């Protein structure tokens, strides 16, 4: 059974401005422990898709199944890291990371130890007591990742989490994400408008067309595992096979826009 199965998903907003459906007949599956990436230009319904998967938006038609069970409303088994920062500024970095554990009633000492372990895994050792306004954008994004992972979801949904970061920070976080993926064995669902990011991270890459959002291209890639095997980003990203895959995705995006 796939971890995530999306069957004939359609979403149509009620407001008159959006005449057509935002998403139409989107179907795909994602096996456990893989990274699904959705690639598309702005306005093709990527965020709508993620909101539907997270349970923030009921589908107009179709079904979303997580481990065979239909999704109804948000839940802790589907963690999110959103495009816009969603940390709680009234808590410290550590307070944010242990928030999901606090919700579950973990005792203070145990959740602190867990939060500190996650912060360390994300390269933020010693940041437990730091207020967020002292952290850089890249550090905040890592706190968000730590928080989402501390909640121990079955699948992590990421909506352009690195979109606001500079190219260098972005690449280092891509590497970090892949390392975490290998170590945790989690399934990831990743939305991006960066073709290179999609080709690098995705096991399955779906290209969405703009309104109505439809899957117009599907590619199975393995550059994520190639990187984990060699540990050399530049070698992977400069590999002719990678460049060719990237260009095919780019062509699909261009073709989808008619």
């Amino acid at each position, binding site marked *: 059974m796939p971890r995530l199965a999306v069957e004939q998903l359609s979403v149509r907003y009620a407001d008159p401005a959006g005449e057509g459906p935002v998403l139409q007949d989107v179907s795909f599956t994602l096996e456990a422990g893989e990274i699904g990436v959705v690639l598309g230009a702005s306005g093709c319904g990527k965020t709508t898709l993620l909101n539907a998967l*997270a349970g923030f938006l009921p589908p107009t038609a179709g079904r979303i199944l997580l481990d065979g069970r239909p999704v109804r409303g*948000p839940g802790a088994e589907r963690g999110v890291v959103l495009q816009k*920062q*969603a*940390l709680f500024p009234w808590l410290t970095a550590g307070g944010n990371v242990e*928030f999901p554990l*606090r*919700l579950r009633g973990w005792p203070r000492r145990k959740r602190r130890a867990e939060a500190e372990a996650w912060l360390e895994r994300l390269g933020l050792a010693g940041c437990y007591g730091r*207020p967020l306004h002292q952290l850089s954008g890249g550090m905040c994004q890592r706190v968000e990742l730590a928080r989402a992972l501390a909640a121990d979801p079955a699948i992590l949904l990421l909506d352009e989490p690195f979109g606001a970061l500079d190219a260098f920070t972005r690449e280092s976080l891509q590497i970090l994400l892949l390392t975490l993926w290998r170590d945790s064995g989690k399934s990831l669902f990743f939305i991006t408008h960066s073709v290179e990011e999609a080709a690098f991270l995705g096991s399955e890459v779906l290209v969405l067309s703009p309104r109505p959002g439809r899957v117009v291209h599907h590619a199975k890639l393995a550059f994520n595992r190639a990187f984990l095997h060699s540990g050399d980003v530049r070698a992977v990203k400069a590999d002719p096979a990678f460049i060719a895959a990237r260009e095919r995705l780019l062509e699909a995006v261009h073709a989808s826009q008619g």
Partner: protein
Amino acid sequence: MPVRANDPYGLPPPGGAWPLSLAVAAALLALWWAAARFGWVSPLFLPGPGRVWRAFLWLCSDQASGGGLAGHVLASLGRVLAGFLLAVAVALPLGLAMGLNRLVRAGLDPLLEFYRPLPPLAYLPLTVLWLGIGEGQKVLLLTLAMAPPLVLAARAGVRAVALEQLHAAYAMGAGRRQVLLFVVLPAALPDILTGLRIALGFGWTTLVAAEMVAAQQGLGQMVLNAANFLRTDIMMVGILVIGLIAMAFDGLMRLLARRLTPWHGKV
């Protein structure tokens, strides 16, 4: 010359210049002293700092009636605090409910919009008619005066939470109660603290005016009574004490805000 950080072109520079503030205050004090010393103004209209100071000492001694200055201050503080606590207990839940629930908002909004701009002194006679001139009337008047800013602050505070923060909390498995307690309330805290500060200031203003209408004791009563006996020096003491207490309130609330929401405005 090295440039200062946080001093971007086009923005008014932050902070103040306390030596200048101090100098202006000292200059005004000196002008006051000179006006009295050289007889520019009759002491009946403007007694000098020395006379006001002596009146202050006299008010603090046992000879003064009605428990002296301390008695008046305590009477006023007691009323304002009682009214404040009552207003907080009623208005904060109401404001939060208005922010969270469409029906509560729809039901209470017209009422609030009508009564919020009313000057409390307009309905003061009505409270006297209902409750007489005792302490109950003053506390009711203050509660009514302080409630609107608190309701508005709590209602606006609920809106301060970002959609992303709510989504993140739900996706970590939070229930509605947990979201309210751990996300909405902390996000609303800065607005609520601003509301408390405004309410306290407004309550103090209202109280002093109310004490001039019907009271046996209190700072407003002290000033009015002194006016009846042309004791300008006691009036000045009263005005200075009223102002200093208001400043202390404001400083205290700002300190509280800095302590409780150090993150506000920084992220």
